[in-house]
Every structure is written in C-alpha cells, then in structure tokens.
C-alpha cells in the first residue's frame, strides 16, 4: 500500500517540479523573445502539443490504485478483521480508461481491425461439418493495431511503452543534470586542482564506451528500469558537464562576476546566484535533445537483453518479441509498427522541439 502512495506522490512532485521550472523560465528576461521565436515555428508548436499528449498519457499511466476484490455477486470480499481485501496488481488511470481494449483478450495473432484470427484452424460448424478457416475473434474490429502472439492488444501495449520511455528520460535527466551542474560550475569557476580532478573523472568515464559500461552495470545489478536510469545518468552527465564547464570558464571572466567578487560576495553564492542562471539555457536545451537519444538507447538495450525487465511494457521489449515476425508466412507487421509509431511520434517531436528551443534560447549553440 505504501509503495502505491509513494508512486502517486512522486508523480505529483514531478509535476510540481516541472511547473516550477516553467514558472522560473517564464520569469527570465529572455523568455518573451524566446517564446515569440518558439510560437512562430509551426513545427515547434505541433511538437509541443504532441509532447504534452505523451506527458498526459505518462501521467495517466502513473496514477495507480488497487481495486477491492469482489465476489460473483459484486460484494466486497472481507478478511477476518472485516477489512476489505484488495487485488494484487494495481491498475493505473490509463488501464481503467482502456478497459474494454485491455481485457479484450484473443487467442493469438489477429490483423489490425480484423474480425478473424490470422491463422487457419479446424472449426466445427453448427451442422457438424468441420472446415479449415480463420476462426472469428471474440472482439471483432476492436483491435486498432491487431493482437500479438498471446492475443494482447498491440495498441494498448504501445501506450504502455510511453510511461517507461518518459520515466527513463525524466529520471536519467534528474540524475545527470544536478551532477553536471555541480561539477561543471565548480570546476569552471574555481579552476586549479578542482578543475583537474573533475576533468580527470569525466575523461575517465567518457573513455569507456557508454554501451559497454551499461552492459557491465546491467550484468552486475540485473535488468530493471531503476538500474537503467542510474547507469544512463552516469554515462550522460559527462558530456553535459564538459559543456557547462566550458561555459563557466567564459562566464568567470565577465565583469559582473568580478564586480560580485569585489563586493565581497561569497564564492558559493556567486556560483549559485550568478553562474547557475547563466548556464541554465544549456541545461534545458541539452536535456530536451538528450531525451530522444535516451529513448532510442532504451529500445536498443532492451532488444539486446540488458534493458528494462521482460514484464515492463517498453518498445524495446515489443521489438524484441516481434523480431521473427516479419519472417513468418503471413507477415505480422503490426507489433513492429506499433513500436515504430510509438517511438517516432515521441522522438521526432522531441528532436524538433529541442532544435527550436536551441534556436530560440541560444542561436550560438548550433551543434
């Protein structure tokens, strides 16, 4: 019970944090011109709408609670102390919205919007004759993207992949960005021995090919979304740290920092009040641009068997399960199509919006 409460709390905390970040951004002096630039671009507007839609699906899929167990007559089942018993698995808001599709279980593959199963079976008719034909579906025309090998709805599986991708993007950024900010600003501002140490740490981490470090980490700590977020955070903070350090070195030489130092402002306060706001645009831009590569990496890692667990709904797992389906006699393409659409409809807007954001916030930072 506690974990469910916690999970819901985390969702609302994250939403609050995102709203806080937006409020902060809106108050910045460069925001009006950036907003104008963003709203001029149609690609940016459309991308933003699609990203909001994805975020909405992710939030709907993250608010969960468990239903009370009910017997055949619909009365609640009580335990010895008279308290109601609950079902083992919690259902999210999205699960509940998708209920007719989620529970519409078929026997095996069926094509999108089909009324019969894909394969032929011996079906006994009412007059007693046995005919080889495709048996009718239990829920004909209900499956927008068909059903997979065990008869689950593919469209629903695709929707379930959204939350995994978003969690990965968000939590990896939550690990990587604070690390990169702290070490990047401190190294750039203080220089000297601290700078050397930070540089040494990130060159060492960067010299290990990211995928191999992930392989080692996932092998040691097992598959799972949490492990994946941690190791992706470890492998991605270095690039951002290098960018922030370079920017901080430039900022350090500017007059207003010298003025703050002359006025006797403590150095940590200078870092927080004068350096941090001036590198935030880099953070925002690279977080959005990084997001798409995280989603793509998750699919690849899940495909080679070191990503999220096999029971977590993710597009990588969908592709992995469907890897032989194009070679079947009647080709089954809808599993791959579902994962393809789910991914490109998230990654493409993220890329486009990231580009627009970069042009709006810092035109110098092109690549």
């Amino acid at each position: 019970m506690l974990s469910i409460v916690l999970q819901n709390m985390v969702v609302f905390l994250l939403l609050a944090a995102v709203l806080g970040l937006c409020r902060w951004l809106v108050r910045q002096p460069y925001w009006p011109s950036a907003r104008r630039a963003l709203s001029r671009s149609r690609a940016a507007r459309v991308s933003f709408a699609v990203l909001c839609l994805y975020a909405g699906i992710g939030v709907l899929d993250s608010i969960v609670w468990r239903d009370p167990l009910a017997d055949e007559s619909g009365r609640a089942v009580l335990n010895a102390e008279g308290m109601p018993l609950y079902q083992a698995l919690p259902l999210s808001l999205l699960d509940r919205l998708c209920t007719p599709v989620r529970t519409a279980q078929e026997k095996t593959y069926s094509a999108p919007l089909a009324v019969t199963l894909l394969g032929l079976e011996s079906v006994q008719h009412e007059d007693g004759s046995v005919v080889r034909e495709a048996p009718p579906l239990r829920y004909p025309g209900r499956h927008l993207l068909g059903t997979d090998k065990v008869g689950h709805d593919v469209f629903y599986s695709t929707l379930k992949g959204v939350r995994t991708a978003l969690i990965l993007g968000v939590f990896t950024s939550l690990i990587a960005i604070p690390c990169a900010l702290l070490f990047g600003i401190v190294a750039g501002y203080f220089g000297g021995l601290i700078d050397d140490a930070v540089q040494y740490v990130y060159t060492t981490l960067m010299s290990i090919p990211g995928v191999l470090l992930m392989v080692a980490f996932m092998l040691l700590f097992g598959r799972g979304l949490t492990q994946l977020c941690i190791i992706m955070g470890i492998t991605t903070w270095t690039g951002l740290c290098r960018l922030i350090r370079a920017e901080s070195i430039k900022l350090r030489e500017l007059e207003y920092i010298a003025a703050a130092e002359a006025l006797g402002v403590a150095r940590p306060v200078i870092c927080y009040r004068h350096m941090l706001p001036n590198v935030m645009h880099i953070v925002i831009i690279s977080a959005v641009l990084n997001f798409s590569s995280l989603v793509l990496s998750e699919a690849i890692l899940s495909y080679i068997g070191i990503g999220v667990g096999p029971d977590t709904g993710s597009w990588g797992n969908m592709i992995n399960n469907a890897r032989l389906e194009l070679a079947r006699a009647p080709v089954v393409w809808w599993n791959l199509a579902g994962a393809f659409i789910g991914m490109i409809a998230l990654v493409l807007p993220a890329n486009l919006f990231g580009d627009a954001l970069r042009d709006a916030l810092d035109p110098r930072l092109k690549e």
Partner: protein
Amino acid sequence: MTAYIIKRMLYAIPTLIGVNVLIFALFFVVNSPDDMARTILGDKNVTRAAIENWKQENGYHLPLFWNAGAAGAARVTDTIFFTKSVRLFVFDFGNADRTGTSIGDQIRLRIAPSLAIAVPTFILGLLVDITLSLIVAFYRATYLDRWALVLCVVTMSISALFYIIGGQYLFSICLRLVPISGFDTGAGMFKFVLLPVVIGAVAGIGAGVRFYRIIFLEVIGNDYIRTARAKGLSEAQVLFKHVLKNAMIPILTGVVMTIPFLFYGSLLMEAFFAIPGLGGYTLEAINGQDFAVVRAMVYLGAVLNVAGLVLTDISYTLVDPRVRLG
C-alpha cells in the same frame, strides 16, 4: 613530432589507470566475488562450499588488495587486484568464467570479423555523409536544403533497430539479394558484410549530414571563400578546393565523436547478423553472465577508444600546420 606523440600517449596512461580502478571497483568491490559465484552457480542449492570451490577454481579466492598470508612480493601479487586488474595493462585477460577458455585467444579470433564490419561502415558512412552534406551546403538556403534538413531529423528519429529489421526484410527476405545473417572468411565474406555495412552507413546519415553541413556553412561564411568566388572560381572548385580542405579539422572532431558509437553499432549489427565478432562475444557473455569476459571487453573498449582519441590528436597536427605541438 616524435616527442609530441610520446607525450600524448603518456597522457593516456592516467586515464587507463582510472578505467582499470573503476572496473575493479565495479566488479569486485560493489559486487563481491561471493555475489558473482551465487549468480553463476544459481540461487538454488548454493552452499558455502560450492561458492568457495568456484572461487578457488577461478582465482577469486584471494584477498582484494593485501595478502597477509603470503611472504615477500607475493603479499601484493597474490591478490585479486594484481591478478585480475593489473594484468589487464599487459593485455592478459585471463580465462572466461563459464568456459575456462582464454579470453585473449578469443579476442584475437574475433577481432577480424568485427573490424570487417566496423571499418567499412565507418569509411562508407564518412564518405556518404560528407558528399551529401557538401551537396546540401551547395544548395544552401533553398527548398532542397530545407527539406534535406527535415529528412535528416526524421531519419535521426528512427531507431537503428528499424533500419536493420527493415533492411533485412527488404534485401534478404523479399528480394533475396544477400543472406539474412552469417559470416564467412575470404571472398565469401563480401555477401555477408555488404548489408550490415550499408545499413550502418544509412542509419548514420541523418546525424552525419546535419553535423557536417553546419561545419561547411561555417567555412563558407569566411572571407577567403568570397575572395575565391570573386576571382572567378566555379562553385564546384570553391567547394572542393577551399571549403572541403578548410573543413578538415572540424571534420576530424566529428570523426572522433563517431568512434564511441562504433561499439554500439557493432554490438547491434553482430547480434542481428550473427557475426562472430567482439560484439557477439560480449552478447554471449551477457547471456551467459560471464563476468570475466565482460570485464575484459569493457577494458578493451576503453583502450580502443583512448587509442582513437590519441590518433585523432596526432592527425590534427598533420592536417593543420597551425596546431602547435605542446
């Protein structure tokens, strides 16, 4: 020049020491040899004796840093840190946990198929990217440029998995031009290597063309390009003689950036096309939970990566006479 090369190579040593210590921490401190034994022997029916036995067989029974039970130099050398980590510096990878075969032998066997995929992919990708981005830069600020950029973003947004699945489906299953997967030595290699190389190059076009186009546009903005046009050179001459030559240094930077992605590529390609290379070896080790092999591959990957970085730094000095050796 020689002094610079030696100096640059010496700089790589602290990095490799760092990598080595990190690998040691990850594989032996965070995750103890006992945990490793439990994973390999399986959680069921695992006894204290079985764990000790397995550790003894694979040389994990030694203390981590300091062997108080030994005498003389053996106090330092008879430890896990020395036998498993320090030996990596001389490329002594030891034996695989599962099969007991020498990892070094396996690497020597499997590096050729890996290179047969990675090197042509790298070169073909570079050539295609630079050619296309030169064309796009030639037609800069036209509809062609704009739509090429849109196409780049779209192709960048498609997972590499779909390029491979789609390519295999189209060329191997539908058209039956090349075998779907496998590997052969000698002349027979060509038909197995062709598809992975082409797919690897095509999958990188989007990001590559975007990257090099910006480099070319920056060079085109320079005064000497205007001068070249003013003295009557054709646009093609300007692009190939002046733009391409001056873009060499930023292009080199781009080349460095693609080196780490070669590892990703090789892992995926070798998985899909059943190529018996290092990527395939790593995948087998993941599935078999062979810690020794994965540890060796992480170290080898880092060494290759660092060697790539050193080579690029050296090639900077060859390409650009302005780069000071220091």
